């Protein structure tokens, strides 16, 4: 069995480390070692996007990233969005538009939306739908999620 490595990363702006096997899933490190359970596991094979996080500016499925690949990286999870207990504009927009129902896809969806906004998008509804298509939601039919992302873009350009 492989030796454990010391994984160190910047997580939501803070330095964190963990002793983990190199091929441990980043998802398990986030949830088990760091106790950041906002990031969810919906399928474990990169289909549903519930474990979406932003790693070095790239939207990734944390269930598919081995720890060793994240070494030294900068990680943003759902817990890093709110500032001093205040929801960020995208979270506020989700709340007001009804973008969260059961809430289980929501953290991943927020990360996908955050990534879209950071890229300067989405310009219109079609771009929003294409940009969020890697994240599955079974409750909403997506209208309100799309509306929330578009509203956040409009109100906080």
């Amino acid at each position: 069995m492989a030796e454990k490595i010391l994984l160190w990363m910047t997580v939501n702006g803070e330095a964190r480390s963990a002793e983990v096997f190199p091929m441990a899933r980043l998802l398990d490190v986030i949830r088990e070692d760091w106790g950041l359970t906002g990031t969810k596991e919906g399928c474990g094979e990169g289909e549903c996007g519930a474990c979406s996080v932003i790693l070095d500016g790239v939207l990734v499925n944390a269930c598919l990233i081995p720890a060793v690949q994240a070494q030294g990286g900068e990680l943003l999870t759902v817990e890093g969005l709110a500032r001093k207990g205040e929801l960020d504009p995208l979270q506020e927009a989700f709340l007001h538009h009804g973008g969260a129902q059961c809430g289980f896809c929501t953290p991943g969806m927020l990360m996908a939306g955050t990534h879209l906004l950071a890229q300067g998008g989405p310009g219109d509804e079609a771009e929003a739908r294409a940009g969020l298509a890697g994240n599955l939601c079974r409750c909403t039919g997506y209208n309100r999620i799309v509306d929330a992302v578009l509203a956040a873009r409009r109100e906080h350009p």
Partner: protein
Amino acid sequence: MAQSPIGSPVLRREGGAKLAGATQYTDDLRIPGLLHGVTVRSPVARGRLRAVHFGEGIPWEEFTIVRAADIPGRNAVAHILEDQPCLVDGEIRHAEEAVLLLAHEDRALAELARTRVRLDFEALPAVLSLDEALETRERVWGEDNTFKRILIEKGDPFDWAAAPRVHEGTYRTGAQEHVYIEPNAMIAEASPDGVLARGSLQCPYYVHHSLQALLGLPPERIRVVQLDTGGGFGGKEDFPSMIAAHAALLSWKAGGRPVKIAYDREEDMACTTKRHPSRTRIRSAFAPDGTLLALEIEFILDGGAYLTLSPVVLSRGALHASGPYRCGHIRIEARAVATNTPPHGAFRGFGAPQSLFAIERHMTEAARRLGMDPAELRRKNLLRPGDTMATGQVLRDAVDLPALMDRALAEIGYREKRPLDARLHERPGRPRRGIGFAVFMHGGGFTGGGEVFLGSVAAVEGTVEGRFRVLAASTEIGQGATTVFGQIAAEALGCPLEAVEVARPDTAVVPNSGPTVASRTTQVVGKLIFDAALALRKTLLESGHLAEGGDVSAAARAFIAARGALRAESRYQKPPFVQWDDAAYRGDAYATYAWACYAAEVSADSRTYEVRVEDFVAVQEVGRVVNPTLAAGQIEGGVAQGIGWALSEEVVWRDGRMANAQMTNYLIPTSADLPRIRAFFEESPYPYGPGGAKGIGELPMDGPAPAILNAVQEALGVEARELPLTPERLLDLVEPEAADG
């Protein structure tokens, strides 16, 4: 005066926590001393278990191991019957049936150990489909593989030989997987002293009931708590009783240590319940002018290996089978059959989507064959207030179905677009467009005498701080129950929303307000809360602590200071007009219905046979809308599930097992697959609902599939009768010669 709470787009109560990622679902809890439970399952659909072999390389002595013989009470998941065992005891009746339970502190080791258990069994011939069950070559249940039969008859026998125009069709729907994004998970701590089961579930008292039989404990030693739940859709109605049973058995054997069983996606998809596959045969007779004269419907559901909830699903399907039509002669024969697949269970709509798909496809086919516009055929035959439905129920709802239909057709541009579609069809090689629609209803609350049988109770209590607490077993699973309950209680109490709390469903704290199913949470339980809150207010008024227009919170504080406690309960009472004869299947099948017309515009690619929904309009009459944001969210989400069922969601069966138990190849719609779903509400207050509200949770599952396949008929001229309508199925219909090659 401030806007009343009912009718306002109040923000979701638990929304802030969900958006911050702070909500703790079952698998998010950290519990000291936790064991991880896993389930060893049968690989065959039918057989006899001979022996269990524990393989090399696993420290078995470190494991807690449970088999059927370890069960202290009855080896059953108690529901309508106790036919379904928790663990196989000799006889295997379906693939994935639980045989053995293992628990260990190390989750990865537990997973590995599961693969090292070898089951020695004798395989027996299995019944793997509805059609095979009907052939009865193999008998797996009773004399003829039948769980339940229902017959509904209206009018004298019809003389089919004299019918001017007759149309016949057979319609099929496949299994559908719920795909709530949070897989099932449960944590139990169990010993003869008592049991605590916590987890992702819809119906705390179902689990409570089932654990009593399993463990042989009195009800007061069992406590079930719902944790935050990431979607249910019926999939967490009955199956959590099984998972709680397994976790409790492991904990019991492990001396009361907490045990968690959290399914991964594959196990959840392959092993838990799905929507019942169906086959519906319809024969209809029409007068030359399109008047519907007679309907003969045979409705069959595949119930899977155990009875579970199938009789009730069958009942709802049968009661919706003749659709929203006036018809003098109706005969509906419904039958749920047994097979050797995992039991099919509750899924949003509960049998009605299957039978409504059939009748709504049938009506459009019949219209085209009669040379009529499908809207005009329906206009001639839609139910009107005062008409009599299949069970003899007189329609009391003040609903104008032709007006609902006209609104949906106007919104989608039915009249304007269809001539354009015809011109588009003259250009070969281009996607073809079509508009289809369906008119339908969904009964709110339990079928027939079900609500009376349940006798649900909800309560409202005051606190020393002058706040109010709603007590109900109905669960928040994403639909907005706690928000709506808060609105209803605030309205009846006459207090601000902020003064109302909604208790977490915990059988040690809340009364049994029944299961969170059947579009009953707002309509039925909401009414109990409304009435309990009114009673509490009345107590305050009569005590002299509250004057009309006074501060309810201050009055509650004063009352509690003087008298100690402030609480009011309400028990279900049926609306006085409701009469139901369950033996004859006659009477008021539901106290009220939600009514709708859904319209879809599709494009069908004439090269790939891919069907896309380009526009979707959902018009419904749902009584008073309690929360416009949440109500629209329910409709939009239900429509999305209906679109998936119609076009892409196919459970592929291989030897009685789900062969595509992955999100990779079981395809639910993404944001890019769906158009904007446009929901519209008509509000006609229902006198027996809270503030006039009716149930809406299941309604949106009923309409999309027939609307979409009706649109495909307009686009391509084919009579598609099977769901899902994948490109392969459509190719076979359009180019039958290609199918032969």
